[in-house]
């Protein structure tokens, strides 16, 4: 069976290489049959990789410990769903997942465009096939998943495997890699279209319309992947945080930042014909950052809490990135004349300008995060000493950027194209500014003095007011004209222009997330050694440690503290934080207990029994205000993204400014 798996991978590699060569030659020499055969090779790659993946998954589900990968990542006691998730639990398997997803995307692109974009498609497939060939090379030669446990010249097996790291045996973490990959891998498609259209000098409108959907879906998956990571860190890691600016976290954030910049500046190209070179650079940067992120996470060049084996994987990625970046830069420079702007910046107070500032801020953030992540590598190369920077650096730079972006989220949609007057701005922003002022005044009255918290919540009120006003104005006029009730009018309004109003919903989601993040300025924490039967206080809560119980099952043994929670004197239920030790790996984990409410979370971690007093338990208690709004805001953001993807009821043809000719007045003849 392992031979079948390894052979499928080899065949996939050959087909991918063929697809690349055939599409390049077919596109260049204009041979449609060669290009068509390349398209079919793409389908073939998908079939082969599906077969290889199915064989690996089958081995995992049946606990076939002759396979080295299965012996390392799976064990008999694991629930079936985690046996499946072990597919991406290790380096070889997760690279196979990457390849499989890429082949799936390529097959979908090839199928849905089989009768369209005939000049473009061979080159799109060429780019996809080039990337696919690279990953198949890794699957076959560098990290093969079908190694067997060998003794002498025979194959052996073990009685039971190591099992998945228990920290990963949690539903959020199980689906985090696939969600993230759906994002990472997905960005190759808009990049392929952009590259192909640049090569063939296809006008921008064609590729932008096609890739807009892909970019939005991919960006959505990347957002889901990042949020799953945050949710998991919060619920599983025990320190109550959701973002530590760890290198692998940053690696997933970088393409998200440039992807967001791209989603916005592409609107400028659609409506004003501006920023063509910049958009090309942005989508290329997003794609390369995805590959770079994959490289950073697996190569171990920056030390992080992810542990990695030393392998030559890093050099392969560097080679691939170097070649790809060189070719792309060369192509952009050769086609600069084709990418000339159709209109120009006329005023600093304009929507163009706000998009430009949006891009500037996002790219500044991306640069800072990239530089901060690579700081140890850079300083070691330049100064000889390895220096790292931590969360204070990232927060100092990114919090002001985030707040400035929040301001733009409110200003941008309401400011006019080309040129806005102060008068029109004053009219548009009267109520939002009032909302901001009232919010900040109220917070000050309640004793809030934290500067960033005040600004953040004030801006949240500002943006929320702009969004509500937009919906209200539009819905009111539809309701009046069509005799509809207000709710139906709002739905109708959104349906008529899903991009605009879906976008507003996404912005609203961001506002809610900002509210959630701002709550962390008011976190409370305490660590207490408490005798069983006594109690301690934190914030508005009184916590009684009732008892400590223990037990075991085939997968793990556990020790649990039962704690009664009283809030403002009233009994509010029991919380049961737990400590587990997993049998196969002897890995301890802490299962925190969280009481989630809209205004704050009560978060309890059972650290251990006290070593000096066997009747006392060490409990770490935290109060996290407003943290649930992060998750709520994210669901709103997702909903908004889905709305954006629904086709509008009315198709808008966007008027574009185009210079047709110049009329010059002849000077008057002398009298």
């Amino acid at each position, binding site marked *: 069976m392992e031979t079948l798996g390894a052979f499928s991978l080899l065949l996939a590699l050959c087909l991918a290489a063929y697809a690349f060569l055939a599409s390049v030659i077919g596109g260049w020499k204009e041979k449609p049959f060669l290009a068509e055969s390349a398209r079919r090779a793409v389908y073939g790659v998908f079939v082969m990789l599906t077969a290889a993946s199915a064989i690996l998954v089958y081995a995992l589900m049946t606990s076939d410990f002759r396979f080295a990968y299965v012996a*390392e990542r799976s064990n008999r006691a694991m629930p079936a769903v985690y046996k499946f998730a072990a597919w991406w*639990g*290790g*380096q070889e398997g*997760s690279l196979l997942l990457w390849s499989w997803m890429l082949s799936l995307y390529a097959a979908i692109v090839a199928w849905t465009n089989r009768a369209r974009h005939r000049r473009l498609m061979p080159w799109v497939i060429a780019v996809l096939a080039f990337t696919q060939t690279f990953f198949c090379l890794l699957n076959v030669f560098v990290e093969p998943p079908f190694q067997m446990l060998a003794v002498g010249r025979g194959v052996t097996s073990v009685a039971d495997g*190591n099992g998945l*790291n228990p*920290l*990963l045996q949690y539903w959020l973490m199980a689906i985090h890699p696939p969600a993230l990959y759906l994002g990472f891998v997905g960005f190759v498609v808009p990049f392929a279209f952009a590259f192909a259209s640049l090569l063939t000098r296809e006008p921008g409108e064609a590729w932008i319309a096609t890739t807009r959907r892909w970019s939005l879906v991919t960006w959505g998956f990347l957002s889901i992947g990042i949020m799953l990571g945050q949710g998991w*860190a919060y619920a599983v*890691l*025990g*320190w109550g945080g959701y973002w*530590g600016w*760890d290198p692998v976290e940053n690696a997933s954030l970088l393409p998200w930042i440039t992807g967001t910049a791209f989603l916005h500046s592409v609107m400028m190209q659609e409506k004003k014909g501006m920023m063509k070179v910049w958009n090309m650079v942005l989508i290329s940067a997003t794609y390369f950052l995805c590959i770079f992120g994959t490289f950073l996470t697996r190569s171990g060049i920056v*030390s992080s*809490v*992810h*542990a990695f084996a030393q392998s030559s994987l890093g050099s392969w990625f560097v080679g691939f990135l170097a070649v790809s970046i060189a070719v792309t830069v060369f192509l952009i420079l050769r086609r600069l004349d084709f990418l000339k702007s159709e209109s120009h*910046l*006329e*005023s*600093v107070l304009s929507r163009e300008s706000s998009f430009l*500032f949006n891009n*500037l*801020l996002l790219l*500044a953030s991306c640069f*800072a995060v990239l530089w901060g992540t690579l*700081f*140890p590598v850079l300083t070691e190369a330049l100064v000889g000493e390895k*220096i*790292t*920077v*931590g*969360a*204070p*650096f*990232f*927060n*100092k*730079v990114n919090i*002001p*950027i985030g707040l400035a972006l929040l301001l733009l989220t409110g200003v941008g949609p309401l400011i006019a194209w080309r040129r806005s007057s102060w008068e029109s701005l004053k009219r548009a922003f009267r109520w939002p500014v009032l909302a901001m002022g009232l919010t900040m005044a109220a917070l000050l009255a309640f004793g809030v003095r934290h500067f960033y918290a005040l600004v953040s919540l004030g801006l949240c009120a500002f943006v929320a007011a702009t969004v509500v006003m937009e919906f209200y104005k539009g819905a009111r006029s539809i309701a009046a004209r069509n005799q509809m009730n207000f709710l139906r009018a709002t739905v109708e309004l959104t349906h008529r222009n899903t991009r605009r109003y879906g976008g507003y919903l996404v912005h609203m989601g961001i506002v809610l997330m900002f509210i959630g993040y701002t709550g962390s*300025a*008011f*976190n*409370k*924490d305490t*660590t207490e050694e408490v005798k069983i039967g006594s109690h*301690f206080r934190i*914030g508005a809560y009184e916590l009684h440690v009732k008892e400590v119980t223990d037990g075991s099952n085939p997968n793990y043994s556990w020790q649990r503290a039962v704690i009664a929670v009283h809030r403002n004197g009233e009994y509010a239920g029991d919380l049961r934080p737990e400590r587990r030790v997993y049998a196969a790996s002897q*890995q*301890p984990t*802490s299962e925190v207990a969280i009481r989630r409410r809209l205004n704050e979370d009560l978060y309890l971690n059972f*650290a*251990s029994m*006290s*070593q*000096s007093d066997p009747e006392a338990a060490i409990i*770490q208690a935290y109060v996290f205000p407003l943290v649930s709004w992060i998750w709520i805001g994210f669901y709103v953001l997702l909903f908004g993204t889905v709305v954006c993807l629904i086709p509008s009821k009315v198709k808008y043809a966007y008027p574009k400014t185009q210079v047709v000719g110049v009329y010059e007045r002849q000077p008057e003849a002398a009298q």
Partner: protein
Amino acid sequence: MKTYVRFGVLVAAILGTLAWLAASGIRESKTYYKTISELKSMPQSEAGKRVRVTGDVVAGSIRREGAAVRFQICEKERGTTLNVVYTGKDPLPDTFRDEAQAMADGKLAPDGTFHASSIAAKCPSKYEAAPGKAAPQPLNPGPSRSSL
């Protein structure tokens, strides 16, 4: 032209502010990587620097003393050991146990003990998420510490 000048000035102002914030952030948090041997042979003048030191946790050396946790890490190749004491408020990572690879951020005290403000630990197996990093916010007390 005037539009571009105005725009340019704004861009320069924004980037300038960010660069200043970045420089101050680096100053506040820069941490030098040092091996245990390098740390022990550091000249006195450098004793106040924030350092990140890695080593394997010596089996049986982890002791909890109230709020503090004391343990020893050793550098495998040279056999040198270092005494570490951690008094941070964040829980120790789940991966922190005997023989694990630990990373401690902090400063070397005059008595030769390393006072760690944050501990991270790795699982010694390949491509596994070994998170559980204690939050690296040691030197800036948050604006709302527990009033207990």
